[in-house]
């Protein structure tokens, strides 16, 4: 019987742990250089544009769609109990607590995260990062820092937009299509959602996801192999690792926050 697979498993596990270690080193390096001058405000603003403004369409459209689906599904379920006036609460709670931050983060990983990884990976492949090093410029400070912090800032903003569009979508379906009273929908939302229990947790999740996606995307790009296959692999890896991490961390936060 061959036990080669045991060795392979061990190698994978070790590889995973050492990759995690390198990721930790990368994060520590970023933290260390964060407060060193210059501030790179212009680069930061450019990144907010690339990661945030360019994601508006996908976020608002998906938010609207998800809200509409929630409105429809929620209505069908509540109608059985004659409780359709609580549709607002159902749509609102689902969006604010879970779907808003999580779906926004997943969409952002796919669009903005992969774009960032590809961009940085290409810079590795064309020796631009080495060029920076030879000019005594730290590539982490120059390239990684603005992008990571832009992602952190952008995520809660996008998440809030997603949620608001979702609430609107639920309103369109519930009040516009299914005949739920518009006023009841809105007041149901307002009475069932508490800032401290729900909204704050939602924003916190979005912030944490922003940190994670920002770090993962830039790390993958930064450590990409300097070939086109390498860039492609790091882009894919960003989406896969980022998505899985978001969902796992979502569980942890949900459990800890008591939401």
């Amino acid at each position, binding site marked *: 019987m061959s036990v080669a697979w045991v060795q392979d498993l061990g190698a994978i596990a070790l590889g995973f742990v050492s990759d995690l270690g390198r990721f930790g080193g990368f994060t520590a390096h970023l933290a260390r250089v964060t407060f060193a001058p210059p501030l790179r405000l212009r680069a930061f603003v450019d990144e907010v544009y690339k990661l945030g403004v360019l994601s508006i369409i996908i976020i608002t459209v998906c938010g609207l769609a998800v809200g509409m689906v929630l409105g429809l599904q929620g209505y069908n379920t509540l109608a059985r109990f004659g409780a359709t006036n609580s549709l607002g609460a159902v749509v609102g709670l689902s969006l604010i607590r879970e779907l808003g931050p999580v779906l926004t983060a997943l969409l952002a990983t796919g669009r903005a995260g992969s774009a960032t990884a590809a961009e940085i990976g290409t*810079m590795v492949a*064309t020796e*631009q990062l*080495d*060029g*920076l*090093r*030879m000019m*005594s410029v730290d590539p982490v400070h120059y390239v990684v820092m603005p992008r990571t912090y832009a992602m952190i800032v952008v995520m809660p903003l996008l998440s809030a937009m997603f949620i608001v569009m979702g609430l609107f979508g639920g309103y369109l379906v519930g009040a516009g299509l299914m005949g739920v009273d518009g006023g009841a929908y809105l007041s149901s939302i307002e009475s069932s959602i508490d800032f401290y229990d729900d909204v704050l947790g939602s924003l916190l999740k979005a912030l944490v996801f922003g940190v994670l996606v920002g770090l993962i995307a830039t790390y993958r790009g930064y450590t990409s192999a300097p070939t086109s296959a390498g860039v492609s692999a790091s882009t894919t890896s960003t989406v896969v690792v980022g998505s899985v991490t978001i969902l796992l961390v979502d569980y942890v936060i949900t459990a800890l926050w008591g939401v």
Partner: protein
Amino acid sequence: MAFGRRPVFQDLSCRFPRSRVSVILGGSGSGKSTMLRLIGGLVGPTGGRILVDGDDVAAMSERELFQVRRKLGMMFQGGALLDSLSVYDNLALPLREQGELSEAEIADEVHDRIRAVGLDDVDALLPGQLSGGMVKRVALARAIIRRPVILLVDEPFSGLDPISTRRIETLLVDVNRRSGITMLIVSHDVPSTMRMADWITLLLPHRAVEGEPHALATSGESDVREFLGATQGAA
């Protein structure tokens, strides 16, 4: 020096003369570019010392290297210009990052280097809009903008037609003569090497040979002569 398990070279010792044009020659895979990267501190050796103007870069941390690199300039094979910045911003970047000069002083330095490499009116262009030869010139301008002591040049003639090759060759020699920068050029082109080099380091499969061009061309060792004579087409 090894990458992973594949040794690139072992037991290598060589030195480069100050203020002269030295060319590192060798076939592909001989490790010429690796040598340049070792000197620049972009990769670390598995053993040994690398002395750059007296400092051992092999033993330095990244932060210490940043200081040493002030004395170095590197011209990359593909230019390695930041493709999202204009030519002006690319050249100004190292000066701006250093933070010692005013914008007006930086403008002077940038335009001076642009002229020195034989270009004109390229400030607002993006790297993607430049021809191959122009990219090399801009890369050279950026490499010398901090007035380095040593210039590392990686395959300056790759991808260029014979006329452009001659032009870049003339330019490099010109820069060396005017400023006395020590130049280390990695190349595979023998004819231009024979013309421009004051000193040649030849990386052969199992050893390295160094010396003046003429001495090597008439060397007693057959593989040396063969390498230098093999592409002795146009002298």
